[in-house]
């Protein structure tokens, strides 16, 4: 939080900051995600660039006051272009001892702690594992600590409503997240009017709750304003973002919108079949709200039925999409093979989470790369596209649809828990400038009948796509299925040569896709870098931030972020071979590194963390420095 003191208002010093990281932490029931979301909206409206990191337990309500129940939301906002939710918070709001216990270590030395002292009871301290009260034993000496009786203040602010019987005490206490938000809003010189409007809308049917939350919010703001405890307050000016219209968007939302856009731009109805699973369910929720776009959403009885229904819909001429996370994708594997065999266009989204098995349902990981590429029986290649940032999920979804429709193939679209739930400002695209996917395909007609016969496995010589012949079209009646197809006719075939040929054709299609990919973008401002940092997926932000840091220190480093995992861009091998050292950080044990080593025979240096959390930029910069310039291992 590099700062300049610029003013003195009403006995307070306003400190200008370039950026700040704020973390709200409390019990799952304390409304931390909501407070964080609203603070994010305020920051966006203030024109900051921002990135968020919600982090919540898999349990809906773990026992109150325990470490397991702590939910947090971190926001990094800046007057600069930023790429990550920030490594260490400058400000920590801890609603109870467990939140303090869990998050204090992350706080910057000298950072600000706001404690809800009301929650620091003997029992809560015990539950959090404190033997001594951290407020008294020196634990907090390195920090600027504000002990605020948030619960008491909240109840006091709502006394009138309680007396009039509009609220009971418990309901009043529940508004304490808004009081905390009001206080933090004051700290960062943020007007709360947008949040007020949002609360009015959210509680339109319960006006007494709207009033209560708004009163608590304002009480928090006024507390900051009138209490002398807060000597400083801060201001982060707007960032110089590229001109355009912006909004905040999470990855799951952007991915959903990308699917809608693909449907609109292909003029194909969207069919979305899915089974609830964290962290992919939001896509189902989002799309089920968007039926006005002609979207059919289907909550299937299980993961297999979800993809089964999508295959059926694709056979019928819909843009079929299913989404899940690793465990669900494992269940879909056999059906994905069927989709490869029947060469029908569809998108299979994997919002990756920590594994194996149930793993870490609410945490992020990149460990399903091999699953996406290989976890099917037989040789079943399919394209794999990876989204790199929350907003990029929009473009990645459209790209997945383009490949699926052009080449008549199932496509895996990889996102992850971090992208899914994190938000960033998104510059709205010009809708007319989005790819015209209606040109990517046409349905077969009776013109495809040659010599009185329709050949469902006769391919386009360039894309190798087979005809998409919809039921309902007279004369094109044909049968598809999972048994090997005879080239051309599509009849069942056990011929040895035919199977070899079809297997190679299915692989050749990947090559044809690669032929059409744009040249790989290499980010090397110096033009002299001899160390390359590779990445894919959600590590883009941390890697970019780490490279920025290294360049500030005078290191010449290039960055390439890979969107197409399969097929890989054709120029990638030459690019990789042209650097002295290549570093590849991943939130897995080195899956893409292993693949690229095999493909390029270059001794790529992996850097791996599998903690359920995205990389911290600082940690990554150190690792790249060591692997890029240190002694070879």
């Amino acid at each position, binding site marked *: 939080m590099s700062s300049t003191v610029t003013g003195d208002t009403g006995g307070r010093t306003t400190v200008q900051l370039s950026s700040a990281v704020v973390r709200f932490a409390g019990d799952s029931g304390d409304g931390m995600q909501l407070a964080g979301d609203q603070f994010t909206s305020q920051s966006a409206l203030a024109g900051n660039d921002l990135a968020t990191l919600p982090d919540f337990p898999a349990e809906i309500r773990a026992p109150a006051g325990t470490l397991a129940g702590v939910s947090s939301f971190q926001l990094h906002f800046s007057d600069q272009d930023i790429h990550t939710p920030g490594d260490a918070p400058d400000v920590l709001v801890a609603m109870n001892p467990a939140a303090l216990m869990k998050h204090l270590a992350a706080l910057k030395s000298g950072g600000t702690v706001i404690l809800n002292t009301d929650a620091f009871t003997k029992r809560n301290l015990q539950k959090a594992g404190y033997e001594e009260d951290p407020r008294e034993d020196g634990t907090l000496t390195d920090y600027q600590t504000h002990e605020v009786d948030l619960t008491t203040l909240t109840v006091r602010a709502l006394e009138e409503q309680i007396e009039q019987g509009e609220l009971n005490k418990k309901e009043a206490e529940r508004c304490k997240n808004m009081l905390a938000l009001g206080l933090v809003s004051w700290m960062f010189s943020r007007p709360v009017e947008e949040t007020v409007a949002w609360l009015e809308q959210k509680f339109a049917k319960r006006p007494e709750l709207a009033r209560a939350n708004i009163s608590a919010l304002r009480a928090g703001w006024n507390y900051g304003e009138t209490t002398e405890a807060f000597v400083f307050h801060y201001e982060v000016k707007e960032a110089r973002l590229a001109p355009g219209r912006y909004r905040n968007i999470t990855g799951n939302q952007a991915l959903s919108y990308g699917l809608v856009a693909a449907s609109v731009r292909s003029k194909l109805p969207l069919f979305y079949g899915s089974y609830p699973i964290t962290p992919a369910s939001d896509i189902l929720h989002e799309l089920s709200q968007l039926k006005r776009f002609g979207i059919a959403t289907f909550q299937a009885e299980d993961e297999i039925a979800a993809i089964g229904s999508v295959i059926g819909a694709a056979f019928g001429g819909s843009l079929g999409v299913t989404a899940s996370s690793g465990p669900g994708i494992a269940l879909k594997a056999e059906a994905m093979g069927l989709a490869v065999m029947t060469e029908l266009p569809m998108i299979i989204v994997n919002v990756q989470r920590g594994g194996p098995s149930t793993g870490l349902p609410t945490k992020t990981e990149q460990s399903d790369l091999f699953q996406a590429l290989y976890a099917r029986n037989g040789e079943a290649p399919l394209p794999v596209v990876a989204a790199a940032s929350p907003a990029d999920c929009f473009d990645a979804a459209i790209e997945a649809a383009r490949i699926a429709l052009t080449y008549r193939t199932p496509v895996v679209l990889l996102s992850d828990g971090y992208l899914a739930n994190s938000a960033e400002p998104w510059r709205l695209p010009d809708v007319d400038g989005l790819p015209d996917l209606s040109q990517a395909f046409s349905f077969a007609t009776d013109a495809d009948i040659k010599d009185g016969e329709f050949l469902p496995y006769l391919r386009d010589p360039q894309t190798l796509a087979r005809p998409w012949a919809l039921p309902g079209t007279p004369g094109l009646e*044909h049968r598809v299925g*999972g048994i090997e197809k005879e080239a051309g006719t599509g009849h069942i075939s056990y011929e040895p040569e035919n199977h070899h040929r079809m297997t190679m054709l299915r692989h050749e299609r990947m090559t044809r896709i690669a032929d059409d990919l744009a040249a790989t973008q290499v980010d090397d401002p110096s033009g002299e870098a001899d160390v390359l940092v590779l990445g894919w997926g959600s590590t883009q932000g941390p890697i970019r931030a780490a490279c920025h840091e290294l360049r500030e220190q005078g290191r010449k480093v290039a960055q390439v972020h890979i969107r197409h995992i399969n097929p890989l861009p054709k120029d990638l091998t030459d690019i990789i071979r042209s650097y002295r050292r290549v570093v590849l950080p991943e939130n897995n044990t080195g899956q893409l590194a292993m693949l690229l080593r095999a493909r390029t025979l270059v001794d790529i240096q992996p850097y791996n963390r599998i903690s359920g959390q995205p990389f911290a930029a600082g940690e990554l910069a150190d690792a790249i420095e060591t692997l890029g310039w240190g002694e070879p291992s």
Partner: protein
Amino acid sequence: MTSNENQLTKKDFTSDREVRWCPGCGDYAILATVQTLLPKLGARPESTVFVSGIGCSSRFPYYMDTYGFHSIHGRAPALATGLAITRPDLDVWVITGDGDGLSIGGNHLIHALRRNVNIKILLFNNEIYGLTKGQYSPTSPLGSVKKSTPMGSIDRPMNPVSLALGAEATFVARSIDTDRQHLSEVLEAAYQHDGAAFVEIYQNCNVFNDGAFIALKDPEQRDHNQIRLVDGEPIIFGPEGEHAVVARGDGSMKIVSTEKAGDRVVVHDPSKDEPTTAFALARLAHNPVGPTPIGIFRDVRRPVYDRLLREQVEQAEAGQGDGALEELLASGNVWDVVS
């Protein structure tokens, strides 16, 4: 159902593929009945889709000159659901068997039925795994000595009709592969039914389980054992109509002499919304080795899933207007950055 000026024939529904079931398999009879029936019903080959899973029965789509999808083990109802939801203009049939539909795909079957998706499910029950060469199936009688059960099977078989009724299917029927007349009538009723239809067809596997349905098929025995359910008729059977079905006090059914039954004979009514009576009829025979009901157990009208789904889409379009992409992208808080 399509009006039909040019009368189609069995030939129009017969593909050029060589049929590869074992000689004497009951599947041949069912195939011929379906190929003959569809043109009579006014079905069009281009608007007809057969979706199947894995197993002997699931080769069925290859022999129909319609659209077809030979999918993976147990999943046909799931594929058919996606197709039927998005393409209400099509006639979607599912061909499955006792292993495919009741074991590996049991979940999809019950959910397709409870949703009342507009698909017609034909379950060929031969009480055996044929394609994998003779293991016992979920409908094989207790104690079946088969390849995987040399000392006899120890798990109780499933009654497909009971299961379908338990899932509250809106149309549930049972017929026999070689009884072309009865099978045609049942399939026609299934075709005309608005919503999901489930038809169990007793199908003889002459290689691995020959004679499983002899009690219902053998000319000497069948009149004694076929309890033919006919809408509006008292349920009596036997060469002379000497047996009758009556209800016990607890709601279950039993067989007594027609004479003794008097006016207590149950009159069949498949249109009852409450499935309890149909279920009690289904429990009369657990395996078809003695008197066994065949015919339509249940045929009721309920809202059809795919229509309800489309109505919601139309309602959303009417209420909120056709989706405008620009508006969607700019929903929520937006702000402008000027250079």
